[in-house]
């Protein structure tokens, strides 16, 4: 794999050789494994609360866990069978073990009778549909897993003019969005129409990368078939991270989402193509989010492909579906080549955030030499999609200079890895920035606590001094003047 700085108006990198190794066949459904583990972990580190008991029989689509504080959406059983355990398990992207519901699959896929489709969504109010989407457990399937109903919820102060359906893969090599547009474009457009109805936007732009001609053709055909004037297709140049929500909006409309703000502030709501298709399934069949497309790729797996996978499927089962490992597998990665995380083992389960699994060999990975001093060449700044100066950030991070880090915008770093990939000195910039950002947050809280402790200590010392003086004054008053002690 080779990395070059993207030229032109957009900031980022081009990855050459991160070829799509997964075959271009229609995504087939992976077989359901005999046992699944539905992780209750939420992206922010909290977790859902189980609503089933060990030994209970659950049906496909039945709610097994929910979020009492509405931080996440409910989780549904992806097969029918018996809950055999609720225990702590390793979860993808989590440093600590998180609770998971283990279900023994009975293979019958008995559906929960409570799953009812919506006959004509145009007759339903936005609130009702949003409640449906929330109950259907639908989250952003691009990788961030932000609850979709929150993103679509109406805010009177910022009306939505445009709905963007994001079909730009978040990272090169991932193919689930591509496959979805090629084979399920109609379903995706239906989901988009539902969302248009909810947010009341006047137009919908489906953004697709220029190097995906089949997806573009399929989507165009479907748009024509739908006969909806609100729908249009936009072609986005191939570079990384074009699929980032903020980068995509900047490219499509030439406006930047304000820092700390949301796309809504510029009249846009952005949703992944997979999310749109999941909404379509929910409305048409009543089936909640129980499966998703996962790309299995890399030279370390025999037959790379994109599969429709039940949530909770162990990665080992997924690899077997793809013909097993090749002998030269060196590393298992969840996510893409740029932002993915290396996994400790393959007993981890597919979650709503899992869009890609890479069984990497040495040839898949960018070789890294020893880190050399920064020569301020500025390649990183040229590649940074957030328009930061990574060379300055690095200097301040090494010096632990929090004020400098804040001044050069460490909190605006999206940790996309572009700077890291183009650095001729092979500096581990992203990991340094990630650590620095977390440290900065901790330091800010610590400083607050310290300042408070210092204030309280000063107040305490002063109070003791005043009390002491008071006691002495009283002592003096009690003694008649002129009389000596003893």
């Amino acid at each position, binding site marked *: 794999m080779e990395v070059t700085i993207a030229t032109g108006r957009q900031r980022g990198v081009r990855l050459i050789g991160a070829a799509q190794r997964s075959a271009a066949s229609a995504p087939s459904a992976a077989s359901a494994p005999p046992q699944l583990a539905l992780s209750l972990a939420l992206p922010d580190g909290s977790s859902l609360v189980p609503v089933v008991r060990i030994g209970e029989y659950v049906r496909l689509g039945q709610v097994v866990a929910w979020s009492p504080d509405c931080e996440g959406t409910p989780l549904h059983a992806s097969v029918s069978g018996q809950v055999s355990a609720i225990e702590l398990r390793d979860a993808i992207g989590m440093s600590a073990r998180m609770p998971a519901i283990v279900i023994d699959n009975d293979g019958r896929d008995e559906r929960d009778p409570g799953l009812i489709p919506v006959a004509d969504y145009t007759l339903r109010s936005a609130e009702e549909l949003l409640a449906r989407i929330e109950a259907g457990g639908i989250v952003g399937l691009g990788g961030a897993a932000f609850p979709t109903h929150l993103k679509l919820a109406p805010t009177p102060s910022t009306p939505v003019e445009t709905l963007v359906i994001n079909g730009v893969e978040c990272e090169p090599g991932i193919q689930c969005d591509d496959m979805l547009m090629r084979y399920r474009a109609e379903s995706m457009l239906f989901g988009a129409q539902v969302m248009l109805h909810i947010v009341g936007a006047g137009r919908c732009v489906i953004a697709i990368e220029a190097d995906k001609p089949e997806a573009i053709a399929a989507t165009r055909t479907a748009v024509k078939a739908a006969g909806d004037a609100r729908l249009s297709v936009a072609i986005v140049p191939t570079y990384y991270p074009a699929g980032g929500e903020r980068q995509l909006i900047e490219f499509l409309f030439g406006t930047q989402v304000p*820092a*700390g703000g949301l796309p809504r502030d510029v009249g846009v709501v952005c949703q992944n193509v997979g999310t749109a298709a999941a909404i379509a399934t929910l409305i048409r069949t009543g089936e909640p989010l129980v499966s998703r497309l996962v790309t299995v790729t890399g030279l370390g797996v025999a037959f790379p492909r994109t599969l429709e996978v039940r949530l909770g499927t162990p990665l080992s089962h997924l690899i077997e579906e793809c013909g097993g490992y090749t002998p030269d597998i060196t590393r298992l990665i969840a996510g893409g080549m740029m932002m993915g995380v290396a996994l400790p083992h393959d007993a981890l389960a597919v979650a709503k955030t899992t869009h890609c699994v890479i069984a990497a060999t040495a040839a898949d990975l960018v070789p890294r030499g020893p880190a050399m*001093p920064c020569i301020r060449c500025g390649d990183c700044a040229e590649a940074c999609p957030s328009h930061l100066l990574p060379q300055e950030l690095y200097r301040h991070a090494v010096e632990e200079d929090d004020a400098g880090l804040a001044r050069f*915008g460490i909190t605006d770093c999206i940790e996309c890895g572009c700077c890291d990939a183009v650095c001729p000195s092979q500096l581990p910039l992203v990991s340094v920035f990630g650590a620095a950002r977390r440290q900065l947050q901790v330091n800010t809280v610590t400083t607050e606590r310290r300042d408070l402790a210092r204030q309280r200590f000063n107040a305490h010392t002063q109070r003791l001094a005043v009390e002491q003086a008071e006691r002495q004054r009283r002592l003096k008053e009690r003694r008649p003047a002129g009389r000596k002690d003893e």
Partner: protein
Amino acid sequence: MLLVLAMLVPAAAADVFWFGPGLPIQIVIASLSALLAESVMLALRREPLQPSLGDGSALVTAALLAFALPPLAPWWVAACGSAFAIVFAKHLFGGLGRNLFNPAMAGFALLLLTFPAEMSRWSMPIVVASHHLGFTDTLTTIFTGVPPVAWDAISSATPLDAVHSGLKTGATLQEVLARTSTAHSASIWSSLGILLGGLGLLGLRIIRWPSPVSMLAAVVVSAGLLNAIDPGTYPGVLFHLTSGATLLGAFFIACDPVTTAASHRGRLWFGAGVGLLTVVIRSWTAYPDGIAFAVLIMNLFVPLIDRLTVPRIYGHAR
């Protein structure tokens, strides 16, 4: 770094063709001295010799310094300058990536101030020289400091020197330029070599366009303006571009990433400053060429430029 060296080859070839084999010898001397200084400093700073010694940065410094020296300068001139550049301008500031000043230019400035006599004995172009020094003669001259014939027979003023001192004697600019035309055509060929290498660097994306473009633009504008005001005193734009170290400075020195500004906008300001100061120094000071001092002065302003040209972060108001 090694590609930077490769891109100096066309200019070196032109130089050897016009002025004899002095330059390669100077490069070797300067490189040996630089590598020695680098090793000593790394040892003193208790840092591993590799990979710092092998990254080629010391060699680039040495080669650029050698380009700035008179080809027949005594060996200790190159050795001193090179060692000073590495020890003082580079390692005492913290080594590669932390130096404030361009090491080669710092070394050159020191030599210019300390050994003015040796630094002004420029070779006469071979085609006009009455005596032609071969390789052995050149080597002897450099190592003994005594040429086989009188200095006057083999040395001459550079075009910039000629203009600088010629105008003081009361000659008109046109007369001076006519007198130095051979030396100037030699200088043009060297400049073409540098230009070729510089374009190569740009093409290979080793350097970026802002510094050279803004520096050359500043030279063109300021020199053109002066020439328009008083053509009898101030030479034209082409003369400025093709004489002295203008192009070497634009493509190889002002582009040194370590000592230039961080952002593209900052580099535009940096380059413009270097170009303007170069013309100012050439026109009104005691020094015929001004690249080295211009670069060093602008190096001082890099932290200020960096502070004032931080790019607007995505989603933030200015």
